């Protein structure tokens, strides 16, 4: 085995995995709080990729070239707009269904997912879009012929993901908002009796989830450069796999699951077969759900009788 290839795949896997982790946050928090798989989450991520490209296009139209400002402004603008998306979607398609039969919000979520995809496709066209490289260059380790390469964007991506996760963990663990979130997750009815505005907390969770997906969207778009209206689907399922792998409902689990999935997928496509890397990820999802449905860090579910 060539160790530089292994190393390279691990580096790529780490970058990919932190992205999965960021998106998985949206699944895991929403699932934790209202027990629903937000099928539209992958498409929220897809929309954020478009927002990134649009923001970059507008900024360069006004002559902005500094990578630092391009990245920071794009991050802020995208997160703002995508949070708005997250909020509106929850408000329109999920909130009225809080007390409906179990399938209703799921079907509604699939509807939202279709709407988002087709809305983007109709507005922006079906073609693959691209953004210019903002931060060229890379660190290289190793010899002239056998080296491991980490692009600056990958470094940025990993750092930003970890900072975002750290900030989010701090919010959930230490702040009043976080305590309320955890309380609602434990027992929504009791929290409401204690005076917590559960609707507001649920909205907040959707906003946080969308914002994290937005950050992921910005970073991925800058890293890979191209995307189209259908990227949300597969990325979404994989991020969900990451959430399940780490233990649904658990924040550190989402990150851990993301990195494990990213690395194993990267190794699979590097050493086994690229064409079947999605099949690999989906099979992993099925296997985890069969053999360890509570994931790595999740608590086992006790059925309420």
């Amino acid at each position, binding site marked *: 085995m060539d160790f530089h290839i292994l190393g390279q795949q691990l580096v790529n896997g780490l970058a990919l995995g932190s992205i999965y982790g960021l998106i998985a946050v949206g699944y895991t928090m929403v699932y934790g709080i209202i027990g629903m798989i937000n099928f539209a989450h992958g498409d929220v991520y897809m929309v954020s990729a478009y927002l990134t490209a649009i923001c970059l296009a507008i900024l360069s139209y006004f002559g902005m070239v500094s990578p630092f400002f391009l990245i920071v402004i794009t991050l802020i603008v995208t997160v703002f707009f995508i949070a708005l998306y997250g909020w509106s979607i929850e408000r329109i398609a999920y909130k009225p269904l809080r007390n409906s039969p179990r399938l209703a919000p799921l079907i509604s979520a699939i509807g939202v997912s279709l709407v988002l995809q087709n809305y983007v496709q109709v507005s922006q066209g079906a073609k693959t879009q691209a953004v210019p490289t903002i931060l060229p260059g890379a660190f290289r380790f190793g010899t002239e012929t056998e080296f491991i390469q980490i692009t600056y964007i990958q470094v940025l991506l990993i750092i930003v993901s970890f900072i975002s996760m750290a900030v989010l963990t701090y919010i959930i663990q230490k702040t009043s908002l976080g305590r309320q979130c955890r309380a609602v997750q434990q027992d929504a009815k009791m929290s409401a009796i204690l005076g917590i505005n559960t609707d507001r907390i649920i909205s907040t969770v959707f906003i946080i989830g969308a914002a994290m997906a937005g950050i992921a969207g910005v970073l991925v778009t800058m890293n890979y450069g191209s995307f189209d209206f259908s990227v949300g689907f597969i990325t979404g399922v994989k991020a969900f796999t990451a959430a399940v792998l780490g233990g649904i409902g658990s924040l550190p689990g989402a990150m851990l699951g993301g990195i494990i999935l990213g690395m194993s997928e990267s190794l699979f496509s590097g050493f086994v077969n690229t064409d079947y890397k999605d099949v690999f990820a989906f099979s992993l999802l099925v296997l985890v759900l069969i053999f360890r449905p509570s994931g790595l860090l999740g*608590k*086992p579910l*006790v*059925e309420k*009788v």
Partner: protein
Amino acid sequence: MNAETLATNGVVGESTPALLNVDGLTMRFGGIIALNNVSFTVQPHSITALIGPNGAGKTTVFNCVTGFYKATEGKLSLNAGGKQTDLRKVLGERFQWSDYVNPKAFGERLYYKAFGGSHRVALAGVARTFQNIRLFRELTVVENLLVAQHIHLDRNLIRGTLRTKGYRASERKALETAYHWLDVMNLTEDANRLAGELPYGNQRRLEIARAMCTEPKLICLDEPAAGLNPRETEDLSKLIRKLRDEHKVTVLLIEHDMGLVMSISEHIVVLDYGQVIACGSPKEIETNPKVLAAYLGTEAEEVVS
């Protein structure tokens, strides 16, 4: 029904084998010990009550007996219809090391892992009702009772589609049984209403009727009098006696209404903090100092539950 017949029916000599034998039942949820070494027996054709303050673990015992929880330790055996059933084995337990050297045990374990589950407990002759009524709300009352007879029916799809003679006979018989139980439970008027539309008291009775349609040997009633008014409770106690006397079924019940418990049960098991603190006849229990201690000051809670 008077006290003498109760006594002769209920108190059965030591020589007859118990219908249900609970031996050293322990249940842990993570670190919490919900049940600790619970042992008791239920004699055939008796009415046995399980009482105790809130959170004592009564429903957990029920869930273990009826197969909805997999007990951590202990033995549960049912001796019904001339057949001894290990109620833990049929749920599909974890593989033991000894299984790997004993192909027969391995095969059996694998079989129960694949096809076992709480339904096996029901098939062995244990039926139950639920504390929070679980009816098929959007099915009619009759259909609820027909579903309960599912395993006795002609389920062949081709015969069913063609409505052959045999199929029609099987359906007719099931319908007769259903109407028989509706008569017993005084629900005939409601036969073709949706189960979810019935008044609360009728829903409780329907649930008992549905459990009886499975032709059980042991029926477990989880707080059958909860939410009933005094008159309905009075009717219920008559009904429970009738089930035992006329329909040859053994009753195990959880109940907070002490009047009901003391008047109908022959044997009482008292749980507190997951342990059996006393068992015996109503008289013995009434005067048991431990029981009095456990119940002192719990009057208010009883009303809430």
